[in-house]
């Protein structure tokens, strides 16, 4: 079995706590060697690259180096942290000048840049290390009676470079969950402009939520912590902007799998911390 660090210092942890609780629980259930990556610097989101590219790269190169030195890969259970770590590694490996600059910056922290580390998504780990047969054997509550709206967001294009999008669909097939068709899968959830204009961010987010709601989704499945913040934490505010009730539950992959594997204790999965009540169980 491979050794990982679970990257759980997500962006805005106070709003993404349910995702973290569920991911830890899932890792425990699957008996994986993936302790919490406690020394890691917290995720910033790749919006930060637009403000200061070098500081962004230094920040994630720090995490990559720490994990590589410990001979552990970085396991990311959501898209924001996955993209940032994978993109940093990719950029540094393909630009010698940039790599030299970042290595110099890390030396100030007494670290020697080490990129001998893999950044692995939860979907990839589930399929390549656990396998669909094992996952199917754990299934206690198939989701055959439900249909979800899968939301990947405007960052999916970057994530696709580093992991296959089909992985997620394969996992949904294992738990027999159907998807509704909607046109907002790759739209912006608004998070990326929240600091510049919270009103624009919420308008973008409300538009997406209404589209998924109108296409008869029972709940939204998000792959990114930023989408979770916009759709769950701010849903009441989105309703005010839209002038309509939405009331659509939002789940992460780890939460969904725990439910499918028979976990019903809302607190253990983190469902009790959602702003929008989960009514599936």
């Amino acid at each position, binding site marked *: 079995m491979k050794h990982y660090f679970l990257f759980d210092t997500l962006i805005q942890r106070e709003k993404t706590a349910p995702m973290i609780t569920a991911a830890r629980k899932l890792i425990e259930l699957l008996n994986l060697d993936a302790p919490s990556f406690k020394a890691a610097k917290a995720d910033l989101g790749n919006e930060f690259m*637009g403000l200061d*590219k070098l500081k962004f790269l230094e920040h994630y190169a720090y995490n990559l180096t720490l994990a590589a030195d410990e001979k552990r890969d970085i396991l990311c259970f959501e898209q924001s942290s996955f993209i940032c770590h994978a993109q940093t590694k990719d950029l540094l490996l393909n630009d010698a000048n940039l790599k030299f600059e970042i290595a110099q910056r890390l030396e100030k922290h007494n670290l020697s840049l080490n990129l001998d580390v893999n950044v692995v998504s939860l979907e990839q780990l589930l399929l390549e290390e656990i396998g669909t047969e094992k996952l199917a054997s754990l299934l206690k509550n198939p989701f055959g009676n439900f249909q979800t709206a899968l939301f990947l967001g*405007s960052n999916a294009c970057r994530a696709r470079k580093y992991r296959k999008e089909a992985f997620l669909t394969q996992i949904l097939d294992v738990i027999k969950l159907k998807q509704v068709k909607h046109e907002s899968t790759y739209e*912006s959830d608004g998070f990326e*402009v929240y600091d510049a204009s919270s009103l*624009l961010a919420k308008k973008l987010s409300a538009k997406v939520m209404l589209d998924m709601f109108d296409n008869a989704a029972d709940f939204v499945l998000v792959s990114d912590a930023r989408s979770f913040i916009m759709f769950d934490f701010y849903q009441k505010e989105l309703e005010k902007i839209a002038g309509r009730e939405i009331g659509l539950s939002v789940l992460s992959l780890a939460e969904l799998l725990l439910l499918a594997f028979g976990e019903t204790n809302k607190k253990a999965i983190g469902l009790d911390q959602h702003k929008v009540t989960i009514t599936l169980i």
Partner: protein
Amino acid sequence: MECKLALSVFRFDAKTDFLPYYKKHFITIDPSLSVNDLLAKIKTEDSSFDYPKGELAALKINGKALFSNVSIDGIINSCGKSLTLEPLSTKRVTKDMIINTDDFYERFDLLDAYVDGKDRALYEHYMIYHYASSVLDLLENYQGDALFAFAYDMIHKHPEQKREILEVVANENTGVFLHVKLCKKIYPCGADVEKKITELKNEVMKHRPFANPLVEKFSHHIDLL
């Protein structure tokens, strides 16, 4: 080898119609031909149909903005054989696939004083990025992603005008910090323009004294890291 496409084509005439509608067409065509050829075929089936022509002719297929000189086989690979054809902006349509592009050219005026008249041709090549952004529908006077990509080119071409250009795009109410990623909304791919916009934001952040309180706020975020 020819293939059969199921098309749903946006139709609207601003002079006579109250509401738009979508007309179905089933067209057999050689996929090595271009979208322009496909539009011409639709025209032969329905002579009242109209579409933009020329080098900068563009439209949306299955929600992706593209220039209509691209080949059909690439579109099939990306979108399948069931295609919805719409103008670049359904709000600005005058006739079927033709739109009023005044708003696009008005944005150019924001930088006109700092660039050459000849540079306008380059700006026009970014037209699909302007209409691909979902921010355009939600924010009046949004400068637009075409202007940001163009501004990035211009600060390199006219470095003596860099400060003025950056001050325009840094506008806190209409500028580059309100851009949302649009890779998936462009065919074949908007990644190069995304890179330019990211670099442009970095240039704004290096620019001191800061253009406005928003840039100052972001700078404070960076300092806190």
